[in-house]
């Protein structure tokens, strides 16, 4: 009976843990907070630095995850296309390098150079930004619409619907969402899912 009791307690603990994790973070319509994070060039970057922006494409991504790697070129292309239109990409690496050694700041600098990133690649070194946003995986996109009331979350999810082959993606969720904002419309869908790597956090 004692064993049974332990099992019940453990199961409840697992459930409680799952709920606390999923209950955090932004939903579409929430106002996203700004951040100040170090870029691969050593400078600090915030959303508010972009005075002329109409919105922001915040992408939690990293070096080591094959799903993130598969999207690197696409993220670069999206920034090249949409930054001049007022929607810059800000990529954030949320991983703890102690758990995921390939995701250290130095490794980020190397990768950004190798791939000629045209966007800031920021390091969430205190792991304080991704929990606020509610990012759970890499890559994980938050499209923000700059309004008078603040930076409103307009779309959360995947970049498109084919991680393996950009040419085969027949739904470009992120680009469609940006186009919707540019036409003063609400993105549809405004929330999608994709497989990704967990965000690596040291065990307490």
């Amino acid at each position, binding site marked *: 009976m004692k*064993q049974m009791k332990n*099992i019940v307690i453990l199961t409840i603990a*697992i459930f409680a843990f*799952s709920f606390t994790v999923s209950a955090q973070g932004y939903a579409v319509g929430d106002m996203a907070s700004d951040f100040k994070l170090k870029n691969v060039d050593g400078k600090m970057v915030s959303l508010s630095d972009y005075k002329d922006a109409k919105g922001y494409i915040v992408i939690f991504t990293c070096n080591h995850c*094959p799903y993130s790697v598969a999207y690197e070129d696409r993220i670069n292309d999206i920034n090249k296309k949409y930054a001049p239109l007022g929607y810059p990409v800000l990529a954030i690496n949320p991983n703890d390098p102690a*758990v995921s050694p390939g995701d250290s700041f130095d490794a980020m600098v190397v990768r950004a150079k190798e791939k000629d990133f045209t966007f800031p690649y920021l390091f969430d070194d205190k792991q304080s930004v991704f929990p606020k946003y509610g990012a759970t995986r890499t890559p994980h996109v938050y499209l923000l619409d700059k309004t008078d009331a603040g930076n409103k979350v307009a779309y959360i999810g*995947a970049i498109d619907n084919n991680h393996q082959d950009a040419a085969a993606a027949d739904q470009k969720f992120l680009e469609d969402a940006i186009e919707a904002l540019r036409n003063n419309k609400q993105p549809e869908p405004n929330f999608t*899912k994709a497989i*990704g790597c967990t965000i690596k956090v040291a065990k307490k």
Partner: protein
Amino acid sequence: MENPIRYILITTFIIGILFTSADAQDNNQKKVTTQEIRVVDFAGLQPLLEKRNDTTYIVNFWATWCAPCIKELPYFKQIHEKYADKKVKVFLVSLDFERQIETRLKPFIEKNKLTPEVIVLNDPKSNIWIDKIDPSWSGAIPATLFFNSNNRLFFEKEFTYNEIEAIIMQLNPQYN
């Protein structure tokens, strides 16, 4: 096609082999090194997820490049072996890229002597099938589904051995 009888015989023979190998897997006797890997899209995976019988199924979503997945894999292997005669079965659904099955996945299975069946889910339309596996799943792996004819539990987390066993007990109070 000159000899239809011969054709039928060969077909029957092949079907026979397929069934035999399926049985062998059911008995958990199949050698790891000879494991042929099924590659399915979500429609191909669905029949497994819909099984409702006297067995408790544990379906773990993982990939060779996922560090926390690899950490918990030995526990799922141990569970699969320990509970083989207690109607608990583990399936390992790999999200490895299809082009890496030969170069990466198969060597990994052999090296780690994985006894549960490994199935590759190769279906890019994850925005559609993630919710069908469980609406609470964000898409991060590892993730694991436990079910039998009475209950269904889903977790997006890395497991310890004791946690897996606790869930088996919860689904099968008679094992206490």
